[in-house]
């Protein structure tokens, strides 16, 4: 079914450009007044190459799930653009999106509430096939193949979701996503609800499926431990903003944004003596209110390195060696030379300041119409 043309001139499979999604906050009984907006996703630019995995990490309320839903076009962004194979699908309606729906599929965090408890597994996995016009016989055969492929017993087609364990239910969700031969699967915390030993099984399965079918993934997670195994690139979000985007391996040895460092430090190491030896930076406080986000750098209220400039100027994303970008006035794990040679990244939010950590001002804004031009910067494949 994946007969669609490959992306023109090897461009990314999926792009989000200056994507914003604001949820209105309403008040009043008779007259609905909008009293503010939740800045769920606030000007995020990311891209995903065919066959790769983009991990998105952040704590609750950072907008990662909202971003995922915009990318899969379950939600319509307030501003910005979503492009799939170069086509701008930002404001497409339901009917127009239908063919794209087979190419982009979702897997959700909670396998019990994302599977209809009254339907048998065969129906759950088979419905997308029937909806896309496959006849009953062929669909039944395909369902069995799919179940087998995700490691379930094909004889269990007539069972209900409650008869399976958590890990098996997540496999059902994956089989349903695979049914229509997608090119891209958006995985919203697919293993967070599972036991550790089962998490590893599901991650390995996702890994195999990616190799076998050449799938691309957007993988959402709330901490940095799981995404590491699956991602090529990892983006870290904080309060609606992308604060760092890096090749997966590099992020763990060279976190540039203090928030990334804090996320890494917060994960305990399962090794008592190393844990004792390690000096842990525990970031105090909690994420601020996304209705009235702080000025300047949104992390400055909790950041141990914050200074006046952080309170006043929103740091732009700047690019370090290897396409690693971060938005911080006081970057970590980089030496002076590296800081001196940074360049302004076109992934930066439009509202960001021009002041880069090397003290230079980035060259003036391009013409407004040019803001959407495809920047040649980061997010390109590393191999």
């Amino acid at each position, binding site marked *: 079914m994946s007969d669609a043309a490959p992306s023109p001139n090897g461009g990314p499979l999926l792009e989000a450009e200056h994507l914003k999604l604001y949820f209105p906050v309403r008040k009043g009984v008779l007259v609905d007044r909008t009293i503010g907006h939740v800045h769920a996703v606030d000007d995020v630019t990311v891209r995903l190459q065919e066959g790769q995995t983009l991990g998105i990490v952040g704590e*609750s309320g950072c907008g990662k799930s909202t971003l995922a839903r915009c990318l899969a076009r379950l939600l319509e962004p307030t501003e910005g653009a979503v492009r799939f194979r170069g086509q701008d699908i930002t404001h497409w309606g339901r009917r127009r999106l239908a063919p794209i729906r087979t190419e982009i599929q979702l897997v959700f965090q909670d396998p019990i509430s994302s599977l209809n408890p009254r339907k048998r597994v065969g129906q759950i996995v088979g419905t997308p096939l029937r909806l896309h016009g496959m006849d009953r016989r062929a669909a039944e055969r395909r369902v069995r193949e799919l179940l087998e492929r995700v490691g379930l017993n094909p004889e269990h087609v007539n069972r209900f979701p409650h008869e399976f364990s958590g890990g098996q239910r997540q496999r059902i969700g994956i089989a349903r996503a695979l049914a229509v031969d997608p090119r891209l699967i958006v995985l919203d915390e697919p293993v967070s609800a599972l036991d*550790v*030993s089962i998490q*590893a099984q599901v*991650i390995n399965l996702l890994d195999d499926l990616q190799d076998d079918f050449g799938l691309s993934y957007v993988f959402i997670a709330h901490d940095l*431990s799981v995404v590491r195994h699956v991602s090529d690139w990892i983006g870290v979000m904080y309060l609606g903003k992308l604060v760092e985007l890096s090749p997966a391996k590099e992020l763990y040895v060279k976190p540039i944004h203090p928030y990334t460092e*804090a996320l890494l*430090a917060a994960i305990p190491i399962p*090794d*008592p003596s190393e844990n004792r030896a390690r000096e842990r930076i525990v970031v105090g406080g909690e994420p601020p209110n996304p209705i009235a986000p702080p000025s300047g750098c949104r992390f400055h209220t909790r950041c141990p390195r914050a200074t006046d400039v952080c309170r006043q100027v929103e740091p732009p994303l700047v690019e370090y060696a290897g396409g690693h970008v971060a938005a911080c006035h006081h970057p970590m794990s980089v030496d002076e030379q590296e800081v001196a040679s940074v360049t302004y990244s076109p992934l930066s939010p439009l509202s960001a300041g021009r002041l880069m950590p090397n003290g230079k001002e980035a060259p003036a804004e391009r013409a407004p119409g040019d803001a959407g031009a495809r920047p040649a910067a980061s997010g390109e494949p590393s191999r």
Partner: protein
Amino acid sequence: MGERLLEVEDLQVSFVTEEGVLRAVDGVSFTLDRGEVVAIVGESGSGKSVTVMTLMGLTRGPNSRFGGTARLGDRELIGASEQELQRIRGKEIAMIFQDPISSLSPVHRVGDQIVEQIRAHEDISKAAALDRAVELMRRVGIPHAEQRARAFPHEFSGGMRQRAMIAMALSLSPSVLIADEPTTALDVTIQAQILEEIKELRAHGDAGVIFVTHDLGVVADIADRVLVMYGGRVVEQGTLDEIFYDPQHPYTWGLLGSVTRMDREPPRRLPAIPGQPPSLLSPPEGCHFRPRCPHAFDRCIEVPPLEARLPEAPGHLDRCWLEVADKRARREVAGRIGLAAAGTVIA
């Protein structure tokens, strides 16, 4: 270590269901001293929560059956009357639950809930109790405690709610604090903050803590001793270092292997434990881990006793028939169990 607080011996809990008898906990024994943290580790259905809830008398019901003993000082908890438990709960044993939103009353102010608990056990004025509640909330790191005491639980964030739960649990200075997955529902940076609070408690040496979790990283951070549970039984128990550096049970190896480590190069493929956890209604014969164990052999059809198999570590118990030398050889092959790789020398 400090004085002995709690002594659990051969605890058995079964539930009679329509489909048969479910043995949730099968022979758990451990002790807790003042100032130490005992971690109970296991996956869903391992019996770790049922164990601690039974100590609080929260699993009682017409279909529950209990066996064994749990002594708190000179009192027996398992057969205690409901009245006696009322006096013990909150005052001598307090509990923090995983989900603070469903364990706080949504229609009462947070401060009042703490006051109510204090006044249920102590004869002091409302004002004095409120002062104490505010002081406790401040101690666990809730900013503007006076105002926050007047707020409702829904006005708190998840981390703050959990702090309020901890403040409530500490309100009567219990000697035993049970924490049932207290950080599982929280973000990692908030988890780190809460773990610091619990470590602080241990440092004060006021209480002994039973910490239930599925996360070995958290265990490494906080525990002094560890019980590993699987399918209702303890499969291994020992000190923190014994469990992490000389694990004896293949399930413990599997658990240690499945954990992702931030400080190491990741493996190309995550080591997973194959199969599913057992159903407690019809558990496998013999060792419960047998069907998933890559090292199982014919003897595993008998249940291995939980006993010390290492002459140098009499407190390190496990339930596995394999010879010790054999285990040490096999687990190296089996994966990346922090040993050789971490450069730790094993005696």
